């Protein structure tokens, strides 16, 4: 088991944001974490990333996180936060190089070039980061994060917090396809927080659903993405269509004309029409 999360809880300012989560991740597995805003997904990810103190136990390759030497841990675990803001005039190439650990062998130039190519940022390599679009910055950050563990020996854990939120559909497919390939071909264990249910259905091996700090469901896309669960967890009604490609697709139902959103605010308007 690459990652074992056992009974992990996180409290922030006296309220419990993550409450007794268990999850396990094997090498080569792509696990996606779903749930409404405020469910505690990012907080759980931050605990596993070492950004927040937690109760319970998190082990990487069987060793408790706190017992890892920071430099060695950085060769096995890479984290892509939800947002990385760069205000200083660093170039794209410099930022990707920052991801490369000091302990990695060689200059890594070939690896970095390949990563920039995969993420379609090679043409931006000499541009300054503050001038890039949100999507370009997101691809850059993923390249930096991957540079950290791409050629490490041993177990590798990749933690992604909404890594496609700023990307256009083509780049979303490109990025998640790369992440899936890294899991299947390179044996990365990947835990990714996502909001897009259909991307989750398309790419994940397994889905975890959180609500109010707890794990409420776990399973394949077909098990998890049901109209009933979407109704109870997210509070919206949707159809779930089975696609020829072999995974389900969620189609939200449009609200009727009588819904609060479409009704005129002022009753006199309704009379006039």
């Amino acid at each position, binding site marked *: 088991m690459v990652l074992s999360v056992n009974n992990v809880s996180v409290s922030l300012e006296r309220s419990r944001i993550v409450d007794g989560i268990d999850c396990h991740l094997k090498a080569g597995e792509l696990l996606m974490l779903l749930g409404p805003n405020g469910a505690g997904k990012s907080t759980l990810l*931050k605990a596993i*990333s*070492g*950004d927040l103190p937690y109760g319970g136990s998190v082990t990487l390759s069987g060793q408790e996180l706190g017992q890892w030497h*920071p*430099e*060695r*841990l*950085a*060769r096995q*675990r*890479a*984290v892509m*936060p939800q947002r*990385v*803001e*760069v*205000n*200083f*005039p*660093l*170039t794209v190439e*410099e*930022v990707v190089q*920052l*991801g490369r*650990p*000091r*302990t990695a062998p060689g200059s890594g130039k070939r690896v970095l070039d390949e990563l920039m190519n995969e993420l379609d940022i090679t043409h931006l*390599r*000499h*541009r*300054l980061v*503050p*001038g890039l679009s949100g999507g370009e910055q997101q691809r850059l950050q993923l390249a*930096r994060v991957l540079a*950290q563990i791409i050629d490490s020996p041993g177990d590798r854990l990749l933690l992604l917090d909404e890594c496609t939120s700023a990307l256009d559909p083509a780049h979303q497919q490109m990025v998640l396809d790369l992440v899936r390939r890294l899991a299947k071909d390179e044996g990365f264990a990947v835990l990714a927080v996502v909001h897009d249910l259909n991307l989750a259905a398309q790419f994940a091996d397994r889905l975890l659903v959180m609500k109010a700090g707890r794990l409420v469901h776990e399973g394949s896309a077909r098990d998890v993405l049901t109209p009933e669960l979407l109704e109870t967890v997210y509070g919206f009604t949707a159809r779930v269509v089975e696609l020829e490609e072999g995974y389900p697709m969620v189609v939200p139902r449009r609200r009727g004309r009588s819904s609060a959103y479409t009704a005129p605010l002022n009753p006199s308007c309704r009379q006039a029409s």
Partner: protein
Amino acid sequence: MIRDAAGRLGFAPSLVVALLAATLVALVSITSGAYPLALGDILSVIIGREASDPVASMVLLEVRMPRFLLGFLVGAVLAVSGALLQGLFRNPLADPGLIGVSAGASLAAIAVIVLGNTWLGGWLAMTGEWALPIAAFLGGSCTVLLAWRIANRSGQTAVATLLLAGIAINAVAGAATGLLTFYANDEELRSLTFWTMGSLGHAGWDDLLVGAPFMLLALLAAPWLARPLDAFLLGESVVGHLGYRTDTVKKAAILVVGLGVGAAVAVSGLIGFVGLVVPHLVRQLLGASHRVVLPLSALVGGTLLVAADSLARVVVAPAELPIGLMMALIGGPFFLALLLRTKVI
């Protein structure tokens, strides 16, 4: 090629240009002043021969050399401290002056001057001739820590809070300094003015002996922080993800700044703008990587301060303008021009 693919100046050519500029400014600074020296005199003293003019040799060895060395060190330390703080806070506005470090260091030094014979007698007895630099160092470190604590309560550096905390710290330190000035006698007042406006006028080998070890230590320690500080530019949590001990890096940077700025203030008083302007200029020309910013800031900062000091000696000769005043006169308009020209800070 002078410029790289990103349109920035290359590190090696810039280093050469900066070294040449430093040498030129050094020669100008050493030869100019109330007693003009010829290059020939300098050469003969350097190669160990008696100069034709014994006064020239004395002026060179006892006045100009220590003053140049001290000025260069102070400028280098202030610029490097500015670069460190800007990296640590991820904010190009951070500067030892703005967040109150210099004011804290200066307050501690002034307290030693004014209260040395009364309340702080024990401190003087304990530290001897090191009383001033150590006090300034402690004052500087405490204020960095205070500003850091205040701005970091939520776990992330709140930039606005940091600057507001700096304003408050500056105000309190200013008031306390005012109070001490009020109680100071005439002789103490004269040395106080030196602190508040900054001066290299008294620079001698004694000052150098006391301040240089601290400043050299700060300058030599700074390069170790270059890589982790680059990671800081991506955000504090990223530093930990990349395998650095975030807290150790922060504390080391604060210690280096407190050490360097404390010693710089101890020997030269309050000199603003170097810490703000120099790293900013270097980043505009060469990019933001600290492996480039730190060494070049040191060179440019030292050169700039020595140049300003030479100018301060010449413009109202035989009197001297305080160097702090001169720096603000040059640095202020220059910084404004830089701001008007640039899009990305």
